[in-house]
C-alpha cells in the first residue's frame, strides 16, 4: 500500500494497521534524510500548515514545526494565550479565519476531546490531531511504537505495560490502540483511582503491582503524573506514588530480563522514574524525541499527498 486510508489523522482509532506500517516505512526514509548534511527535502514547498495550539506544548510543537520545516512547508503558528480566543471567538470561526488565508493543513492541540473530529466536519483542510484533551495523541503513539520497532525489530508479539495516570492520559489511549493494532499485548499499571472504569473493555488488563508488571513486560512506558489535570487528590502524596509506582535503578536491575523504558516527556525526575533510570542505556527517551520528527514528517508527507491540487 502506498496511500493512507484517511484524509486526516484524528486518532489511532480511525486508522488501520496498514496505515501505521506505511507511516513507519515512510518514516524510515525520513530518518535517513535527517542524518544528511542538509536535512531538508522540497516535497511540501507549496503547502501551508497552521499550527494551532490551544493548550501549552513544548516538544510536540517544536517537533511538528521542525518536521514541517524539513519538508519545506510554509508554516504559521498560533497559540491560544495570545489570540482572539480570549475575546470569545468560536473554534470554527478562528480556524475559518486562518483557513481563508489559504492554509492546506492544520495541526491542532486542544483541551477538549473530539475537537479535531469536530473541526474535520466543518472545515476543508487536512487535520492532524496533536492532542485533544484526554482523548488521543496519535503522533505520540506512532513515535512510541516506531521506537519500539526500531529497538526490538517488531512490535507484534511484544508485551507492553503503561504505568501511571491512565485516566487523564491521551498518550495512554492512543498507545493502547496503536500497540494492539500492531499485535502487541498491553497491560496498564498504576493507582486504581487513575484507571478508567471500563479500561478492560479495550482488551487491556489492569495490573496493580508494578514489580509483577515489569517482570511480565518487554517495554515499560512510564507516564508523567499530570498534576495540572488533577482537580482532586487521586493519591495521598507524590512520595507514596513514587514508592509504589516509581521506577528506580534497583528495581530495574532486579528484573530477570533487560526491559526497555520509555517516557513521553516531560519527565518529573524522581517521581515516575529516577534520574539514573532516565539516563540509563535501557531508556530510549531521547530516541523517542528524535524519531518524533521523522514520524511526523511521514504523517505530514502522506496526508499532503492526498490533498488535491487545484492549479486552475
Amino acid at each position, binding site marked *: 500500500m*502506498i*496511500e493512507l486510508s484517511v484524509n486526516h489523522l484524528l486518532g489511532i482509532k480511525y486508522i488501520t494497521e496498514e496505515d501505521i506500517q506505511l507511516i513507519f*516505512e*515512510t518514516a524510515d*526514509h525520513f530518518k*535517513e*534524510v535527517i542524518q*544528511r*548534511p*542538509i*536535512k*531538508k*527535502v*522540497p*516535497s511540501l514547498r*507549496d503547502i501551508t500548515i497552521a499550527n494551532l495550539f490551544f493548550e501549552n506544548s513544548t516538544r510536540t510543537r517544536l517537533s511538528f514545526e521542525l518536521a514541517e520545516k524539513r*519538508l519545506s512547508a510554509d508554516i504559521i503558528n498560533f497559540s491560544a494565550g495570545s489570540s482572539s480566543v480570549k475575546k470569545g471567538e468560536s473554534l470554527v470561526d478562528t480556524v475559518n479565519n486562518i483557513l481563508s488565508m489559504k492554509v492546506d493543513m492544520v495541526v491542532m492541540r486542544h483541551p477538549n476531546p473530539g475537537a479535531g473530529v469536530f473541526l474535520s466536519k466543518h472545515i476543508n483542510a487536512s487535520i492532524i490531531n496533536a492532542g485533544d484533551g484526554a482523548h488521543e495523541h496519535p503522533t505520540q503513539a506512532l513515535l512510541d511504537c516506531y521506537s519500539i520497532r526500531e529497538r526490538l525489530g517488531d512490535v507484534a508479539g511484544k508485551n507492553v505495560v503503561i504505568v501511571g495516570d491512565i485516566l487523564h492520559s491521551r498518550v495512554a489511549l492512543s498507545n493502547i490502540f496503536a500497540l494492539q493494532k500492531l499485535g502487541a499485548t498491553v497491560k496498564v499499571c498504576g493507582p486504581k483511582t487513575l484507571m478508567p472504569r471500563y479500561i478492560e473493555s479495550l482488551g487491556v488488563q489492569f495490573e496493580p503491582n508494578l514489580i509483577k508488571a515489569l517482570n511480565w513486560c518487554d517495554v515499560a512506558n512510564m507516564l508523567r503524573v499530570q498534576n495540572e489535570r488533577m482537580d482532586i487528590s487521586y493519591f495521598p502524596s507524590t512520595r507514596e506514588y513514587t514508592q509504589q509506582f516509581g521506577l528506580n535503578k534497583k528495581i530495574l536491575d532486579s528484573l530477570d530480563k533487560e526491559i526497555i523504558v520509555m517516557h513521553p516527556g516531560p519527565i518529573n525526575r524522581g517521581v515516575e522514574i529516577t534520574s539514573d533510570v532516565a539516563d540509563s542505556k535501557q531508556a530510549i527517551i531521547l530516541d523517542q524525541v528524535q524519531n518524533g520528527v521523522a514520524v511526523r514528517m511521514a504523517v505530514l*508527507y502522506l496526508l*499532503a*499527498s*492526498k*490533498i*488535491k*491540487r487545484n492549479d486552475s
Partner: protein
Amino acid sequence: MYPEYVSEHFLMSQKTLLDATEIHIALHRLACQLIEKHDNFTNTVLIGIQPRGGFLAKRLVTILENDYKIKNIQSGLLDITFYRDDFRRSEKPLAANETAINFVVENKKVVFIDDVLYTGRSIRSALTAIGDFGRPTEIELLTLIDRRFSRHLPIQPDYRGRQVDAIGGEKVKVCWQENEGEDAVYLIKEQI
C-alpha cells in the same frame, strides 16, 4: 471495455531492443568508457538512481571489480521521491525507496547511473537531491537506454548503452536477471 478473457497480450506488442548478449557487450563497453575517464576511481563515486538504476550500478561495479580488477569502488543508491516535481500532480501516489550513500560526495566526481533516460525529470531531481549530501566537483550521467527526442529538459547522458527512438505511448522496459529472471530490453507498444 474488453471482456476479461482478452488478456493484455492481445492489446500490446513487444519488441526486443537488446538481448542478453547485446546487454553484456554494452555493459562492458560502458565499463571501459568509465575507466578511460575515471582511471582507478579513487576520486569517483557511482550512484544508482532508485528504483531501477541500482541494478545497473551493481552490474557495472561487478564488471569493474571482476574483469578489470579495480578495487574499492564506492557506489550508492539515491532515491529522488521527495524531490520529484510531480508530487500531488500524478494520479498514482509516489512510494519512496531506500537511499544508501555511506560516503562523502564533497569534492568527488559523481556518476549517476540509471537504466532509461526519458524526459530528464528524474535526473533533474537527482541533481537537486545530491546537493543535500555535499558539493561534488563534477556530475556525469550514464544510462543504458537513451530515449532521444523525448526530453523535457536540457539533460543529456555522458555515457549511453543504446539510443532509442520511441514515441510517447511506447514504453521501454529493462529487465535484469536478478530481478525479472532475464537480461533484456523491450519496447512495449499498446496496439489500441
